[in-house]
């Protein structure tokens, strides 16, 4: 019961935040605008709406981590620095109930933002194209919620481990840089580092599948690949070009099937599940042992 109490209290406090509502409005406006300018895809109305949600997921892949990290990075670190943690942990609340309550609340906040964006996009899709491909809409929504949850987990874990607000901010910023920005603007990519170690340091023959597997550890790429699971083959986002034979058409199902199992779209939920669970376990373990005095 105390977990629910913590979650309710935290959610109530967060929903009063002007900043979070402003973020939700901005996301909604972006979705509405994307819905408005999209519509040049080949095919009928349903294809246009599928293309709209495909573009929306590309935007969410970059924007949602910011929302999730901002919404969660102070969940526990803020309470610690402000001294509120002592009241939160008074009987009957345990550290676990605080941790789980904060997790539920922050996930609810991020889900609210995503829902806001989807309401705007669905509205434009229905009024402009008169089509509602439910599998794509609800499929991308579900995958997006999971993606948002992974960054809530990461931010909450860091917030649990950080003793101060500044460390929590640094952690959130570093997470976004390492897990998203370096994949969007690959100045230094983990795949390239793996290639250098593999071929230069170890002197082995180049193995693109191996380097792509290293890249695939990112929740950002996992999200983009997971979205493919609910999109038609010709709308598939190709991520690992270097692992594809030259004679394979990018728009065919073979573009996924010829990849090794660990690079296929079906492997994306495994990567997302890893980022959803492991940071939470580590964060909880650190929070349990933390000296909160």
């Amino acid at each position, binding site marked *: 019961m105390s977990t629910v109490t913590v979650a309710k209290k935290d959610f109530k406090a967060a929903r009063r935040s002007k900043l979070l509502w402003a973020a*939700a409005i901005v996301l909604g*406006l972006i979705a509405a605008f994307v819905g408005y300018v999209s519509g040049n895809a080949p095919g009928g109305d349903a294809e246009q709406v599928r293309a709209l949600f495909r573009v929306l997921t590309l935007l969410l892949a970059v924007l949602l981590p910011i929302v999730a990290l901002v919404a969660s990075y102070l969940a526990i670190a803020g309470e610690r620095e402000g001294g509120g943690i002592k009241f939160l942990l008074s009987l009957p609340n345990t550290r676990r109930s605080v941790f789980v309550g904060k997790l539920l609340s922050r996930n609810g906040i991020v889900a609210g933002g995503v829902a806001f964006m989807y309401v705007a996009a669905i509205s434009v899709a229905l*009024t402009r194209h008169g089509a509602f491909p439910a599998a794509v809409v609800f499929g991308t929504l579900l995958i997006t919620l999971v993606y948002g949850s992974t960054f809530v987990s990461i931010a909450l874990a860091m917030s649990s481990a950080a003793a101060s607000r500044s460390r929590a901010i640094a952690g959130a910023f570093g997470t976004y840089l390492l897990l998203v920005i370096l994949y969007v603007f690959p100045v230094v990519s983990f795949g390239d580092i793996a290639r250098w170690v593999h071929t230069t340091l170890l002197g082995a023959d180049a193995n693109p599948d191996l380097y792509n597997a290293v890249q695939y550890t990112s929740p950002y790429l996992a999200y983009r690949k997971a979205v493919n699971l609910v999109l038609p083959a010709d709308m598939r986002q190709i991520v690992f070009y270097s692992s594809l034979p030259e004679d394979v058409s990018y728009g065919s199902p073979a573009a996924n099937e010829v990849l090794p199992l660990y690079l296929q779209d079906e492997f994306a939920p495994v990567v997302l599940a890893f980022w959803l669970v492991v940071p939470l376990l580590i964060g909880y373990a650190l929070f349990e042992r933390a000296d909160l005095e």
Partner: protein
Amino acid sequence: MNRRNQLGTGLALLAVVLFAVPAFFPVQPMLTHDTGETAPAPPAELRQQGYEIVAYENLSERGQELYVTTLEHDGEYRVAVGEGAADFGYPTDEEVRAMYDNGTEPGVVIERPEDAGSLPPSDERFYGYPSDEEGLNESQAEQRRQQIERYDAMSTRIAQPPLGATPQLIRLVSVLLAVLSLGVGGYLLSSK
């Protein structure tokens, strides 16, 4: 506090209305005439390429009017459905794609009169003089230019007006206001 609730509820309801309104007033497709396309080839070659060539004099009065008005509007002119000319076909975007697949060009090539002084200038583009291999001197090249300008391609189709058109912008504003209204209303209701 009560006033805050009322305002929040009002804004949320307004958002629902603004989200729904565009569905009841769909943007009507329009008949588009576009002379921007260039068909730089002799008539026989144009026919081979799948173009239909129609002499300006053979167009109906409405067809001539639409062609002239299109040229006067910088090469693009739209009219409501029902206000087109029987001389032109108005395929949908999908039909246009199918025509391209079949090797047919959408729209027509209008053969302007020899003396087209009463018409606005053709907007066909002549991309420089022919290469030396064609062996054309300057006067022959000038003849080629005049021929290209005489055969003016005009594509016609039925399509939604562009995003900058007023009916489309009204819809955009409606949805943006709906999002704003829902966000502010939600905040007012949540922060009581």
